[in-house]
């Protein structure tokens, strides 16, 4: 809760939820006051000392993917806020770890309330906010979208460097590559086909992380045979007419309370799942370029082994 101590002004200004959290879990008043004095002292010292690159201490993340890398790479006291998605179990790979971290809704004013010295963002969706924050001389680092396993490595490295935690970054990269090499190697011969079929008939084609996970586990992504780039929609009819060896679904069919997911409840798809191999591969694992993509690759490799042992 140190981050709340650092920003008592913000807590007051933001009122509502933050204030409530502050009152319920925050330390006693005396501690808060002394912390504020400590902060003041630090500021005075920093001003007096010669300019030296300090590691960022109030980091805000505006993107689900940078949220997850930040949480796993930075000590919690240096994280000022992440998006609400980080704690959302339906999209985040690490909802438990994100619990308790303050939430930013991504608007510039809200972000500035945290007085961040580093803002991490993804390449999409927040461009106007990023422009505005940069105009106000805030330090914004945009982490590019990972489209393959090298992209995952690049993302880890980019976040680690931005937050000045190179050692933790290297350790994460090493663990990532070790897990990858420990997985069973794809066998010779024709690769079995697979497709990642999602809400609204969307499939992941080449240039997506799901495609990278399929390749790494020795599958041929059937979506590559369709005229699509990165992602697109495939008529269910085509899937039934020429089904893949393994049908990969992004979640249980009951997970979505949305009409856009009706295709996942279609009787023809149910039938396909009875007659062909299928796998539920939570998209939390491959939505973002984080080390958790290895979990997806691991599950796919197991499925491939099973296919090889008992070919249909």
């Amino acid at each position: 809760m140190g981050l709340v101590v650092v920003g008592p002004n913000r807590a007051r200004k933001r009122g509502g939820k933050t204030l409530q959290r502050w009152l319920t879990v925050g330390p006693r008043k005396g501690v808060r006051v002394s912390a504020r004095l400590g902060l003041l002292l630090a500021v005075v010292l920093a001003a007096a000392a010669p300019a030296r690159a300090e590691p960022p201490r109030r980091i805000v993340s505006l993107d689900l993917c940078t949220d997850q890398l930040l949480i796993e790479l930075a000590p919690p006291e240096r994280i000022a806020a992440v998006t609400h998605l980080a704690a959302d179990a339906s999209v985040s790979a690490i909802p438990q770890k994100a619990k308790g971290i303050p939430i930013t809704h991504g608007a510039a004013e809200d972000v500035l309330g945290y007085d961040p010295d580093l803002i991490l963002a993804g390449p999409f969706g927040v461009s106007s906010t990023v422009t505005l924050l940069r105009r106000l001389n805030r330090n914004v680092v945009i982490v590019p979208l990972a489209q393959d396993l090298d992209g995952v490595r690049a993302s880890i490295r980019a976040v680690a460097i931005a937050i000045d935690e190179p050692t933790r970054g290297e350790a994460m990269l090493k663990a990532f590559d070790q897990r990858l090499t420990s997985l069973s190697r794809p066998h010779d011969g024709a690769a079995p086909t697979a497709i990642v079929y999602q809400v609204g008939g969307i499939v992941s084609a080449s240039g997506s992380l799901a495609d990278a996970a399929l390749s790494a586990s020795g599958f041929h992504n059937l979506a590559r045979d369709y005229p699509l780039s990165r992602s697109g929609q495939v008529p269910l009819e085509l899937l039934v007419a020429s089904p893949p060896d393994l049908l990969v679904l992004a979640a249980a069919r009951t997970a979505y309370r949305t009409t856009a997911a009706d295709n996942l409840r279609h009787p023809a798809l149910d039938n396909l799942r009875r007659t062909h191999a299928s796998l539920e591969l939570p998209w939390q694992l491959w939505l973002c370029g984080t080390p958790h993509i290895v979990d997806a690759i691991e599950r796919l490799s197991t499925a491939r082994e099973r296919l090889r042992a008992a070919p249909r």
Partner: protein
Amino acid sequence: MSSPAATNVAGRLVAGLAGLVLFAFVLSLALGPAGFGFGPAGEAGSLIFWEIRLPRALLGMLVGATLGLSGSALQGYLRNPLAEPSLIGISGGAALGAVLTIHLGIAQTLALALPIGGLLGAAIAMLGVVALAGIRGGPITLILAGLAVSATATALISLALNLSQNPFASIEMVYWMMGSLADRSLTQVWLSGPLMLVGMGLLLLVGRALDALTLGEDAAVSLGIDARRTRLAIVAGTALSVGAATAVTGIIGFVGLLVPHALRPLIGHRPGLLLPASLFGGAILVLSADIALRLIQPWADVRIGVLTALFGAPFFIWLVLKTRSELAP
């Protein structure tokens, strides 16, 4: 126009339209990304035919018929050339009703809740429009009232999707705003089909009343037309058919506007005959639009609601220009 010979010609026209519906229906069954024909051989083929193409063709036919018929009935009853379920917010109300049942979780526990939500939304929207514009409001009042109802429905749909924190909210917005027939299942046909049929039955019953109404209100009453019963049949019929249709396909616009206008020159100003003609005409329009989509660009994923809007919007402009003298102050 109402000579026996003309009636005969119009009757033959209606029969011809019915034949075209059958043709388009069969063609729709034969077309798909898996190739021309009634599904490839084997189990996959029969699955494609029965579980994927049949529901698509059936829904295309029923939804098209619903939209054509309700457009024709609304134009006849409101005596307004611009009346149409999607333009005056009835489809929007239906979509809102369906969205609410889905996102409140009622549709999961009770299957029929979805089309019932749709028809309740449609009924409320219809009553709202009529209350705002008045039964004999001019074209402008009606369009304005429809715009208000439709904007309210869109706002509330967006709110429901926002509040649900649905990660697919944007995909689903598109789903409701631009209707589609892709990858629907027989489950959805069973859910909505019977309600659409009942609604269409109610609308067809008002044909005689609409004919009489063309002579004026007083003449209609003297001919034994019950104004209240007619009104009830129109509201209930439109709500049932459009509500159930929209609940499973989203909003497919302009069909109800285009079809009656296209057929009126052939049929004449006889709502009683125009109703069945519009029913078949709507089915033909939606089925052939859906066929065209699959022929032109099976991969472009253009939605049927986009196609009908592409044709409908210029037509609407033309219609506004045509009725401008009437609309001018």
